[in-house]
């Protein structure tokens, strides 16, 4: 999924140079600037402790920035308390009220806003229908499964028709299969209701699956913002390339630059050609990043075998749809290759045995030059 979000939509949430320093002196969020558009599914992705949850909590109003500004619908939030912000949160542990039924839980926000009784019951029923939980009104949270509790939490937030829905790892507590189902369901729900979703996760696959745009965070900073395709195909830093998917890193030196292609010497002075976006000076130290699935692997004795790198198969890992090869180039360098198994053959095609001398190659477009 993950189409490109058109840039002409109004901005719902804006963070301007937001910094959060906790009393302990820990800098949780470091000069973060983000613009999130109306109706967008926006993910904050990063390892635990990267500041993504703190960022979300500042948008919700549970924390206040040490410096910088949070704006919702263009209005600076300052110290506006959570109950005066037009956003709702789905908490990591759902935070359902244990002493209230499903109906009462979902009705809570409307009751606080003194919505008339019959409108409350109509809207609660609609919200429960939306998350496919009709008929569960009188149950208590403890009588529900994890997935059902999750949906109550969603309904409880959505029933208020917030401008923005904040989700803090809402699928974290579910098992893998249910999580996959809920990912699609969430995305579908978001497209149905058209509310802006800001989604915090440490699961890169989840972020890629659902998001229109992703902000990758590490150590309190936003490293890259882009569509899933941009983030996966054109990472701008080693951290992003490493955190999202799998990447081979080959350090080397720029040998030659002609227009948009550079030749970099890697692994014992072997030249590889890489497409570059920005000008690069000859002689600079760089890292060449290439995804395992972009590398083609051919036995050396095959007719016309030619490659950028040569090496020997050191490990073969069969995972069903694909096979991973670990190819040793020299003492310090190995390259992981992901090769799709022959789909026309029941034996999966012939796997290359350990020890095979192979040639590795990739298209110049398939590799990236990283400066850090």
């Amino acid at each position, binding site marked *: 999924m993950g189409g490109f979000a058109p840039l002409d939509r109004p901005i719902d949430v804006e963070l301007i140079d937001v910094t959060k320093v906790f009393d302990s002196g820990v800098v949780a969020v470091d000069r973060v600037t983000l613009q999130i558009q109306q109706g967008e599914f926006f993910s904050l992705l990063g390892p635990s402790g990267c500041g993504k949850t703190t960022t979300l909590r500042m948008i*919700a*109003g*549970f924390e206040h920035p040490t410096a910088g500004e949070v704006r919702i619908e263009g209005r600076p939030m300052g110290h506006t*308390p*959570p*109950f005066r912000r037009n*956003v*709702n*949160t789905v*908490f990591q*542990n759902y*935070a*359902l*009220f*244990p*002493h209230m039924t499903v109906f009462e839980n979902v009705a*809570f*926000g409307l009751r*606080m*806003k003194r919505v008339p009784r019959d409108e409350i019951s109509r809207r609660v029923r609609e919200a429960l229908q939306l998350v496919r939980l009709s008929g569960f009104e009188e149950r208590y949270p*403890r009588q529900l499964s994890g997935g059902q509790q999750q949906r109550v939490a969603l309904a*409880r*937030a959505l029933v*208020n028709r917030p401008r923005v829905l904040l989700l803090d790892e809402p699928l974290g507590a579910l098992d893998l299969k249910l999580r996959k189902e809920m990912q699609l369901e969430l995305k579908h729900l978001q497209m149905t209701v058209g509310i802006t979703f800001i989604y915090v996760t440490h699961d890169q696959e989840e972020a890629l699956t659902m998001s229109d745009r992703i902000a990758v965070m590490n150590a309190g900073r936003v490293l890259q913002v882009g569509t899933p395709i941009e983030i996966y195909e054109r990472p701008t830093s080693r951290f992003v390339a490493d955190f999202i998917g799998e990447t081979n890193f080959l350090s080397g030196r720029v040998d030659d630059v002609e227009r948009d292609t550079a030749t970099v010497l890697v692994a014992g002075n072997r030249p590889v050609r890489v497409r570059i976006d920005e000008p690069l000076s000859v002689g600079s130290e760089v890292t060449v990043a290439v995804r395992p699935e972009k590398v083609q692997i051919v036995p050396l004795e095959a007719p016309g075998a030619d490659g950028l790198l040569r090496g020997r198969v050191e490990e073969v890992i069969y995972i069903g749809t694909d096979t991973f090869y670990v190819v040793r180039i020299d003492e310090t360098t190995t390259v992981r290759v992901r090769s799709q198994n022959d789909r026309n053959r029941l034996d999966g095609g012939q796997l290359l045995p350990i020890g095979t001398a192979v040639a590795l190659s990739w298209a110049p477009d398939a590799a990236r030059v990283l400066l850090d």
Partner: protein
Amino acid sequence: MTATATTSLQAPRRKRRLSAGWALLWLNVLSTFVFLYAPIVVMSIFSFNASRQMQVWMGFTLDWYARMVHDERVRVAAENSLVIALVSTLVSTVIGTLTAMALERTRFRVKRLYEGAMYLPIIVPEIVMAIALLVFFNLSFSWLDRLFGLQLNFGLGTITIAHIAFSFPFVAVVVRARLADFDRTLEQAAQDLGANDWQTFRYVTLPLLMPGIIAGALLAFTLSIDDFVITFFNAGVGSTTLPLEIYGRVRRGITPDVNALSTVMLLASIVLVLGSLAFQRRRAT
């Protein structure tokens, strides 16, 4: 297969090598029952005795209970006890709950000092507190008299204040225990859904704390209804409570009507304590 798994899970039975240890343990159990429960059982049984003498069993009767019900002094004492217990429970529950909230939720300068001072009534010997309150009331009354011409005397008021003073820390301890494992994201969720501070407290915090608060209240009630030492020192004319009444009667010799009264109080206490435990055990999640 299943059988093997089950047996392998059971710990191998150990030989009782520490026979001296086992003997001591049994002795302990036995003396507990003899010295703790036997007197209570004897007392209860003899409240149904048809004889005035404690030593001989003359047959079953409910006379002593009937007499107790019609005894004017017992009625007055019971009324006093109940009024004191209800008022002091109400006030000490409110103060205790607020104290627990303040200690658990806020940071203030003299918090540690206050914490220590507040728990003092739990630790200090009751007689010390009784004397202290007596001296305090005496002094206060003479000052109030001198400054404002207020003539105040010992009575239900002083007893009630004294009971509040020693029971609210117990409430605070119980409520605080419940607050300690309170999931604060629930309050955040309420705020997130548009509840202001008061609404959050009213609809989320208070209902979830209620089992702890009720347990604390029952504890305070129990403490108040059977308190003797502090009550004795701070009572005045016409403010006799049940424990004081029983004491007064025992001084003239132990009679079955005292047994009956004590048995009723024992039952009431047991019910209250069990209620308190049940509420404490009731989990919100």
